[in-house]
């Protein structure tokens, strides 16, 4: 499948990827919204089932790389059901602020309710926002995370530039995203899992095989480790690097604003 992996050096025509399908650029956000509207209520359950709970470990390591300090302002883009935001809320303390942002209202609603249930809403703001056009002031954020969200953004280059704009100088971006397995054998096993087992699980748990098929396809179309690293450099991030996790199935990219 690696040959299908688009480098997404943003497409020149007026279309873009929606999984393995080419769709009109203006239509992608709405279609992605449709997918997440469908899975929102069972999103965390499905994540646990799909990854065997490992997504919690990937997120734990990402949070460590953020090196959050009390009093900082953290923006969690595509934060969905708020699991990262809840953790950040404790780390920044009462003097800090966490902004939970997502383009999808249904996901945000689930996230907001969950944060209230956890008693973690004091220093958290919930904002419906498009990653490409972040509604925040320049140089206002200490750290941005986007976990399993960048691949759903229509124009990743514009989104990266928007993130760079709102970051404070010295601030950092962490992109946690599915990537390319480093071993060909693992890649084959992973393909079988993604295109056979994952949609079946989606059908069983969320009664929605198509949405989970889209998730698998969108992972394959997402830029691989080196391509995303180059995209971050193009956007203006410095000191960029990445860590592969679970054999490269997932990678976390880190970059700083100079």
């Amino acid at each position, binding site marked *: 499948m690696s040959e299908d992996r688009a480098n997404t050096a943003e497409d020149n025509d007026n279309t873009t990827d929606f999984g393995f399908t080419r769709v009109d650029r203006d239509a992608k956000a709405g279609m992605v919204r449709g997918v997440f509207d469908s899975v929102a209520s069972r999103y965390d359950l499905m994540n646990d089932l799909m990854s065997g709970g*490992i997504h*919690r*470990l*990937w997120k*734990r*390591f990402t949070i*460590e*790389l953020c*090196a959050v*300090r009390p009093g900082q302002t953290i923006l969690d883009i595509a934060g969905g059901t708020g699991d990262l935001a809840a953790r950040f809320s404790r780390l920044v303390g009462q003097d800090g602020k966490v902004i939970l942002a997502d383009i999808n209202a249904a996901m945000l609603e689930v996230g907001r309710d969950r944060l209230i249930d956890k008693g973690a809403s004091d220093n958290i703001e919930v904002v419906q926002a498009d990653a490409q056009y972040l509604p925040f002031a320049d140089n206002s954020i200490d750290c941005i995370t986007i976990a399993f969200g960048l691949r759903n953004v229509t124009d990743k280059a514009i989104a990266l530039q928007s993130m760079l704009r709102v970051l404070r100088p010295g601030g950092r971006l962490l992109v946690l995203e599915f990537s390319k397995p480093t071993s060909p054998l693992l890649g084959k096993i992973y393909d079988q899992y993604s295109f056979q087992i994952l949609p079946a699980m989606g059908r069983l748990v969320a009664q929605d095989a198509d949405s989970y098929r889209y998730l698998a396809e969108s992972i394959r179309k997402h830029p691989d480790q080196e391509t995303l690293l180059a995209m971050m450099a193009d956007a203006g991030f410095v000191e960029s690097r990445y*860590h*592969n*996790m*679970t*054999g490269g199935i*997932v990678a*976390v990219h880190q970059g700083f604003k100079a």
Partner: protein
Amino acid sequence: MTQHDPALLSAALAGAERAMNQAIALSPTSHQALGGLSGTLLGVEVTTLDLTLYIKMVDATEVRLMTHCEDQTDAFVRGTLEDFGALATSEDPAAILINSSIELQGSSHSLIALQQVVSRMDIDWEAPLVDALGDVMGHQIAEGLRSVFRWGEGARASLKRQVSEYLLEEGRLTPPKAELEHFYDAVQSLAMRVDRAQNQVEKLLAKAALKRETQ
């Protein structure tokens, strides 16, 4: 940072962190001492495993384990797995720090204080059993477990004594401790005498060379 898969390390640390925080929750007598260490950050590099981890004392009831940390550590220690095993179980951690190959950067105070809190932890295993099973059943099971632990501890001590006696007295496979210490002293004394003799020889050679030059 080490070359291990971060997800695997995170899994190990998440499990260890959970177990440690559970143990702290069950040991209320250690909360005051841990409270005094709040905010302390220790770095530990285990050279045997090519692993670096950080231990943050969040407050009196919570420890956080991390694979990555950019804050200044109060103490950073580097050593082998065996060194850290000896340090963790030692009654005299300061002696281990001085005599082992553990390298320490920063203050040893917080490290020794944490080691002492951990070694003196009195974990109340009965509390969760009573919560889950009720007073009578919980207490009975806890008593049973305590007997098993006591027996295990006694058996371990007895086995250690008997093995030691066999190796020393019956098998004559190892020398007695006093004899061994005497031997070490003799070796050290010999090494010092050899050093002194070598210095004397070098001094004489230098003197002879000087004499030859002046002639």
